Every structure is written in C-alpha cells, then in structure tokens.
C-alpha cells in the first residue's frame, strides 16, 4: 500500500472490500541493503558482547566485531558498485524507503572507510599513562559516575572502560549509511535520529575534562533536538502538501507532473506556503547537521568538548552523511523548487565560507580552530551543491571523500600532543612542536596545507572540483567569495604552522605521545589519501563522476 493511498484513506472512502487482501507482503532486497544490515547486526552483537563477555576480553571482542563489520560492509558496498548498482542497476529498494544508487554507494563507502579509521582512534589505548596498571583509552571509565566523585575513582581503580563506545559507533554508522540513501522522509528522519543519539552520548564520554565533555553533549543534544524537531515539522508540512513521504512522489507534485490528482491532493498542492515552509524546515535541519551558518553555533563547543576521537569521527562522517542527504533532498525532491532555494543557499554558502574563515582567525584552541575550519569547508561544499549539475554532485562527493580523511587524520594528530592535563589543545602549547617532534609537526602541516587547499594536496583537488562545478553552474561570484575566504582561511592554517616550526618551544610544553599502530594507521591513511588525491586524483574523480546521478 503506497503512502499516497494512506493519504487518501482519511479523505475519501476506501473502495476495497477486504483490507487484509490489499496488504502486500513487504519485499525487501536484502542483498542491496547488506552494508546497512551487516553493521546493524554487528552493533547488536556488540551489545550482546557487552552483556555476556567478561570485562577483561570485551575490548578485544568489540574491536574485532566492529572492525570485521565495517570491513565486510565496505566489501558489500564495493560488490554492489561492481555489479552496477551504482549506475545501470541503480534503483529504489525496501518498498521505496531506500535508494541504492551512485551517490548512496559512494557516500556509504566513504562513511565506512572513515568509520574504520575512526574506530582505530577510538581503540587507541597507549596515549594516556596507565591508570592503576590498566591501559586506558580516551573514554570515561564509567560514564554514569559523577565527575570527581568517589565512584569515579573506584571505577578508574577497578580499570573499567567504556567499551560501549564500539556498538554506539556502529549504531551511528548505521544511521549515517541510511541517511544519504533515504528515499522517503520518514526513513530520513529515523536515520537522522539513529545516528544523532549515539553521537550525543559519545560526546559526553571524555575521560579527561569530563564536565566540559558533558556540557558539550548537553548543548549538542538540546540544539540537535531542536533541529530534529524542525525537520520533523517540515516533514509533516511537506506531507501535508504532497500527500506522500516518498521523495519521488513529492518531486512530482512539486514539478506538477503528478499523474493521478486526488481531490485532497488538488486541495493541498496549490498551497505554496506548506511547500516552502516545509522544505525550508527540512533543509534547516540538514544544514544544522552540516554545520552551516547560521546553524553552526554548536560546532565549536561540541568539537572542543567531545573526546577527540569522537570529534574526528563526527566531523568527518557526519558531514559526509548530512551533505549526502542534503544533496538528495535538493536534487531529487526539490529540483522543481530550485529557483526558490538557490538564492537562499547562495546566501548560506557565502555567509558560511566567510564567517567560518574569519571567526577561525581569533581562535586559540586547536579543536575550536578546526571546528571553524570545518564550518568554512561546509561553505565550500555548499558552493558545489548549488551548481545543480551532475558535475556539482560528483565534485561534492569527491570533496567529502577528500575532506573526511584529512579531518580524521588531523584530529588523530591532536590526540597525540599531550601534557599532564591530557591533550594540550591550547595553541600556545603547540609552539615549537616542529623542533621537538619534526615528524608529527610535518604530518600536521600536511593536513593544514590540505585544509588550506595548497596544490598537490587533496584539499586543492577538492576545492578546484567544487569551484569549477560552481563556476560552470553559473555561480561565479560564489567562486570569488570562496577564493577570498580561502585566502583568509590560509592565514590561520599558516599561523599554526608558524607556531609549530618558527616559535621557541616552551620549557613546560607538551610532549608527543608515541601511539600504538592503531593511531599510526589512522594518521598514515590520512596522509596517504591526502597526497594521492592531490597528485593523482583522476581515478577517484572518475569514481565520483560515475556516481554523480541520483535515482529517482
């Protein structure tokens, strides 16, 4: 029974004599949904592990389950893409709820790989000094223990670790996988909540600076809940307008190409207020997740307060998922409305690029700085979104892939620079890092140069792709603003490099912890992707180019 039929249930009398006979058995294409199903399964196994496996072996069990699941899901994505589900066989599955097409598979692949790298940083246990003979990770010993209380000390002493972070990570990944692939508004909303809730929790779990971490989580949760409510309201309005949750049907109604116009539909589809307000609210919710101005307020606080591995994961993967969903909404559902949303998005992109770059200049904390930099980057990506051409889609896909690895690598480096109070995120403490640990500073410099978009790094290829698409799509002024804000942004990236290489180290400055192979892999992957996408991006551009068509 289609959603349109449901819509008509309460407006016109049903003609069917036997309602039971009208209910079809749902037809689910398990194969095409396998990436999501694998991760969901692993997340549930993770919960069981948490319940039944002895505390001692939980960490390794969880690591194993999560890594295997992410790798297997990625393999499933690759297999689907290889069989042509990204191009020729692209279609809509799960009763119209989920689209399996090029952008969906590309983004799912990106999310899975970044999550895998993110998982490595989650599992790092060599950075903090051992507490009472137990290796500890970045997460609180016992989240429920009040910070500074006796029970917290007991938990630390007992060597508790919050291994729940692994299933939480997997649940978040599930939501992110579905989010850009969602093909009806309810699926979109469910996916949004599925990945948001674990992230709110994860933000609160820092081992050090726990109050700050909890504050970040509360802020994120409150603002996120607001954004979700807006989205939900928008969904309701849009449903009221089009009489359907399905992207395709709504698009037809928006275009005016809908075939059978029921009286109820005829009544509502003339109501532009429903359409405009509804779409604006949904887009607002997505822009919140993306971190675009003016919905960016949460970003610096949350990025700063959350445990750094979570920040890295969130900054990379959430952005990928949210931009995927935004693209699909704008390109599949609302193309008929583009003369209305393009000017608004122009404004949002310009303000986002400029505000991100300008405010970042005054930051004194490396995590806040990266947060504002991520806002500026959201603006650059929006420039590609506005192109409304297939090149626009593929350039955004490419940018997201390039950006997410740089981000996760950069935050992984942040976890290494530590002093007695944990991570030393204040910029003044990074002075002279290049002399103490040339390699770490050089790696971080590579990431910063990529953020700044210096040629021969992935940042440049991505920026070029996006700006090119924008210019071809007739948004030349956006390109100029983008270039100007890149120049502004370059200033603060360079400032960090100056600080690391040309400033005198402080006598009581931080030390660089020697990480386990896990974090090294994460950073190594980041550097490798940065350089490869900078020097020889053709293969990946092709991939993104082939993936640049949405199924409808």
């Amino acid at each position, binding site marked *: 029974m289609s959603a349109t039929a449901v819509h008509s249930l309460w407006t016109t009398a049903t003609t069917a004599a036997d309602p039971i006979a009208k209910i079809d058995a749902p037809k689910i294409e398990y194969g095409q949904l396998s990436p999501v199903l694998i991760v969901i399964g692993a997340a549930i196994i993770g919960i069981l592990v948490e319940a039944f496996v002895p505390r001692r072996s939980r960490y390794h069990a969880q690591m194993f389950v999560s890594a295997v699941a992410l790798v297997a899901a990625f393999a499933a994505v690759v297999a689907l893409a290889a069989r042509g589900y990204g191009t020729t066989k692209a279609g809509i599955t799960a009763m119209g709820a989920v689209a399996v097409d090029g952008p969906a598979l590309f983004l799912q692949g990106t999310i899975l790989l970044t999550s895998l790298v993110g998982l490595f940083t989650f599992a790092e246990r060599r950075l903090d000094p051992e507490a009472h003979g137990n290796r500890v990770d970045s997460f609180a010993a016992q989240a429920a223990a009040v910070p500074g209380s006796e029970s917290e000390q007991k938990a630390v002493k007992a060597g508790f670790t919050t291994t729940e972070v692994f299933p939480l990570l997997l649940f978040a990944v599930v939501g992110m996988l579905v989010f850009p692939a969602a093909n009806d508004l309810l699926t979109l909303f469910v996916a949004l909540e599925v990945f948001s809730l674990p992230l709110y929790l994860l933000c609160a779990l820092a081992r050090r600076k726990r109050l700050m971490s909890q504050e970040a989580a509360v802020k994120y949760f409150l603002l996120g809940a607001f954004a979700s409510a807006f989205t939900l309201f928008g969904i309701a309005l849009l449903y009221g307008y089009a009489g359907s949750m399905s992207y395709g049907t709504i698009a037809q109604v928006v275009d005016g190409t809908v075939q059978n116009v029921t009286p109820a539909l005829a009544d509502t589809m003339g109501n532009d207020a429903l359409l405009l307000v509804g779409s604006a609210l949904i887009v607002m919710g997505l822009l919140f997740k993306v971190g675009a101005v003016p919905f960016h307020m949460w970003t610096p606080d949350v990025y700063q307060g959350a445990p750094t591995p979570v920040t890295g994961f969130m900054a990379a993967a959430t952005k990928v998922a949210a931009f995927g969903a935004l693209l699909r909404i704008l390109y599949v559902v609302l193309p008929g409305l583009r003369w209305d949303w393009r000017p608004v998005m122009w404004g949002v992109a310009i303000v986002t690029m400029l505000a991100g770059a300008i405010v970042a200049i005054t930051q004194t904390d490396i995590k806040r700085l990266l947060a504002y930099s991520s806002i500026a980057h959201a603006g650059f990506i929006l420039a590609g979104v506005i192109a409304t051409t297939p090149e626009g889609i593929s350039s955004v896909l490419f940018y997201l892939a390039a950006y997410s690895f740089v981000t996760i690598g950069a935050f992984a480096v942040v976890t290494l620079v530590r002093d007695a109070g944990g991570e030393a995120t204040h910029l003044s403490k990074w002075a002279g890092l290049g002399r103490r640990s*040339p390699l770490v500073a050089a790696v971080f410099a590579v990431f910063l*140069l990529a953020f700044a978009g*210096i040629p021969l790094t992935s940042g440049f290829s991505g920026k070029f792709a996006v700006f090119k698409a924008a210019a*071809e799509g007739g948004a030349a002024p956006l390109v100029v603003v983008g270039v100007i804000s890149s120049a502004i942004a370059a200033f603060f990236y*360079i400032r960090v490099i*100056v600080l690391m*290489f040309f400033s005198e*180290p402080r006598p009581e400055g931080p030390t660089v912890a020697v990480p386990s192979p896990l974090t090294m892999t994460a950073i190594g992957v980041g550097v490798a992707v940065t350089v490869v996408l900078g020097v020889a*991006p*053709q293969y990946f551009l092709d991939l993104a180019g082939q993936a640049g068509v949405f199924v409808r």
Partner: protein
Amino acid sequence: MSFPLLTVTAALPAVGAIATAAVPAARRTAAKWLALLVSLATLALAITVLIRFDPDGDRYQLTESHSWIADFGVRYELGVDGIAVALIALTALLIPFIILAGWHDADPLETGSSRWRPTQGFFALILAVEAMVIISFEATDVFLFYIFFEAMLIPLYFLIGGFGDRAHEHGEKTAATQRSYAAVKFLLYNLAGGLIMLAAVIGLYVVAGNFSLTEIAEARANGSLDMATDTERWLFLGFFFAFAVKAPLFPLHTWLPNAMGESTAPVAVLITAVVDKVGTFAMLRFCLQLFPEASKWATPVILVLAVISIIYGALLAVGQRDIKRLIAYASISHFGFIIMGIFAMTSQGQSGATLYMVNHGISTAVLMLIAGFLISRRGSRLIADFGGVQKVAPILAGTFLIGGLATLSLPGLAPFVSEFLVLVGTFTRYPVIGIIATLGIVLAALYTLVLYQRTMTGPVKAEVNGMPDLRVRELVVVAPLVALLIFLGVFPKPVTDIVNPAVEQTLSDVHQTDPQPEVEAAK
C-alpha cells in the same frame, strides 16, 4: 617516444631533494655534497636542453604531453620556447652557486643554543624550489603551471622562516620574530595572489574548456574561441595580479624587502634571482598569449606602475641602512624595468626584458652573495657598521664593486645591454615613460656607489680590521658569475639569439608590430 628531457630536468632536483632530506642527521657534509652534485647534474641537463633547442625551429620544443586529470581537462604538457630555455639555464646555473654560498648557513650553532637548523632540510628545500621553478618554466598547461606556481611557496616559506642570518643586530629573539613575520608576509601575499589567480584559472576553464596554453592561444588567434571583452579583462587581471605579486610590482612589492632582509643571502638570491622570474616570465607566456586584447587594454596602467616601481624602488634603496634591504629595493626597481619592457610591446623591449631577467639574476646573485659573505664576517647587516673593507679584503671589495656596477648598468657589463634595449623599446612607443624611467639609472648609480663608498672605502673600522678576504669556496662562487657578467656584457648574442624568435612570436600573439621609425623619405 623520445626521451623526456624536460621532465627529467625538473624531476632530478626533486628526487635530489628527497634524497638529501633522507641523509642521516650526522652525515651533514654528505648531504651538502649530494645537493651540490644534484644541482650540477641538473645544470648539465639544462645545458643539454639549451643545446637541443633550435631557436629557429618550432615555437615549443622538446614537448611532452600526457593525460593527467581528465576530469579537470588537465594535461601534463611541457614545452620550452627560447625565453623558457634561457630562464631554465639561469636557474640551473645559479642553484649550484647558491648551494655553495650557503654551505655553512645551515650548520648547527654552538651547542646549547635553542636554534634548530637541520642542514639536510635547508639543501633539500633549495632543490625542491629549483624543481618547482623549472617545471613552472616548462609547463604549457595552465593548471600544471598553477600547481607548481603555488606549491613553490611552501618550501620557500620554510627557507625564509627557518633559516636566517646568524648575525642580527637586535639579538636572536627579535630575529626569530622578524623572520617569521617576513615568512608569513611572503606567504600571505603570494597565496592571496595565487588564490585570485585560481578563480581566473577556473574562469578560463569555463570559457575555454581546457587548460592547454597552445590550444587556447591557437583558438584565440584563429578566432574560434571568442571571449567577451569584460570576461577577458577580468581573467587577465586575475592572472596578472598573481604575477605582479610574485614579480613584484608596485604596490604589491612590500613583502620582498622583508623576505630578502630576513633570509640568508643565498635564499634571498633564490627568491629574487630565480623565483621572482617566474612572475615576469608568466606575464610574457600567459598574460600576453591568453589575453592579448586585455593586455593591450591594461598596458597604460601597468607601464605607469612599472615606472613607479623603478623610481620608488630606487629612491627607497637610496634611503636604506641595511645592505640586504637596499639590494631588495634595487631589485624592485629592476623588476620595474623588466615589466616595462614586457608591456612596451616592442621587440626590443621584450627581448631586453627577457635578457634583463637573465642578467638581473646574475648581477643580483653576485652582489647579494658577496654582501652575504660580508655580513657573516662582520655580524651585522647595517651599512654604518662597515668602512674601509677594500683595504682589508681587496678581492671581496673588488668583486662587490663589479656586482654593484653591473647593478647600475655600466656599459660593458651584462645588465647594460638589457636595460638599454628595454629603454629603447619603451621609448619608441612611449617616449615620456621611457624618459622618466631613465631617471632610475641615475638613482641606481647613487645607491650603488654610496653603498660601496660607505662600506668599502674610508678609514678601516675597528670591527672590520682583520676581516679575511674571500675564501676559496667563496671565490669559486663569485669568479664564474663575474666572468659571465663581463662576457654577456660584451657579447650578449648567444642569449639574444635564443630569445628573439620567441619574443617575435609573443608579439605577434598580441598583434603588435614594432613602430616604424619615422624617417624622411630620401628618394
């Protein structure tokens, strides 16, 4: 497929840079020798390019073309014309001298100092810059050029910010601050220029659909690619802005005195004699070829800015107290001449400008490197701290004088020929501009001779007494360059022969011919 000579010429220093950086920390001397050998081998390759290049042959020779990033319409396309060949030869020639002159510049200071000077890094960065400069001269794909034009900033930034003079009149702490200020200023100016160029590069792609210089120039010439006047002008401005920052042209020049003042003398030579030439070269190769009409449109303003550069640079040079900053302002004045020659749009002007690029490279190298030797001996950069050096170190003073005389374009030394050509070329079309620019020569005499007089003549100052004359290593650096200055001053034909055909072609791109001299008809 023929041997990819151009690629190898550019790749060798790049590989050399990686190899040099990989030499273990303790084997400092080995790294220096490795860098020197690599730079000499590159010189040999550059000479091969020079020999294999046929001035009367095709416009672009030794071409290579491979697909690179098809999605962006970017190809790996290399090719050299006479101008590029001359500048590649200049680059490859100067780098060994720069390395040799900076032999001890990156040695670690006495133990206990917090200064951090990785020798390997210094030489690796110099080679990296060489590689990027050479490939910028070779690239005939706008995107390829852009990438290296921008990427070059990073090693230079570290060279300026990471390695300064040992001697600094305000102590180490101020020196470090000023150095990092200079490095950041350098980077921000050039990055801003480069990013504006990026917008223009993207715009060019949207208009033309590819990045190939030869294809676009041909399409422009035969009219199959039509640009709206406004579009062409905006794109021209985007490109020109970046090149004018690099060159540097008034009022975008202010980063140069800082950068040259705070870096060591060899790095200062690298910046002004080698890297800045990419800016003027790119004006000739990209601005004029891609946007001929806009170039003509902008000519009056650019000429005025160039003349301001000439006079203003020279005036500021006269007022400097710091030897290196003086040379920096003198260079700004000379870049004014080069840009004036390019945009005079006459064959003399442009061959003069190209020749000027080569000669300015050599003469500045002589002057700056000797100044560097002088400064490291005395431990100060201030002119007032010197006096009577010629009595103590006659060879040093003598060669410094030759470098200075070259800078003021004394006839018989190389820069004279080029400056004369530029002025004649400008005068035939823009007499007023030509006349004003001549003032620059007078001022050049003033700042050079006063510099010489104050530092080298007069009573020997106490701190200067006992100053050693040029050492063997320093002589090896200076002597060949001085010889070259004299040789090219007397016999510039080898360079002009290579350069002239390319200049003629560039002029024909802009649809310009030399103004005919107005002679009363005799018959």
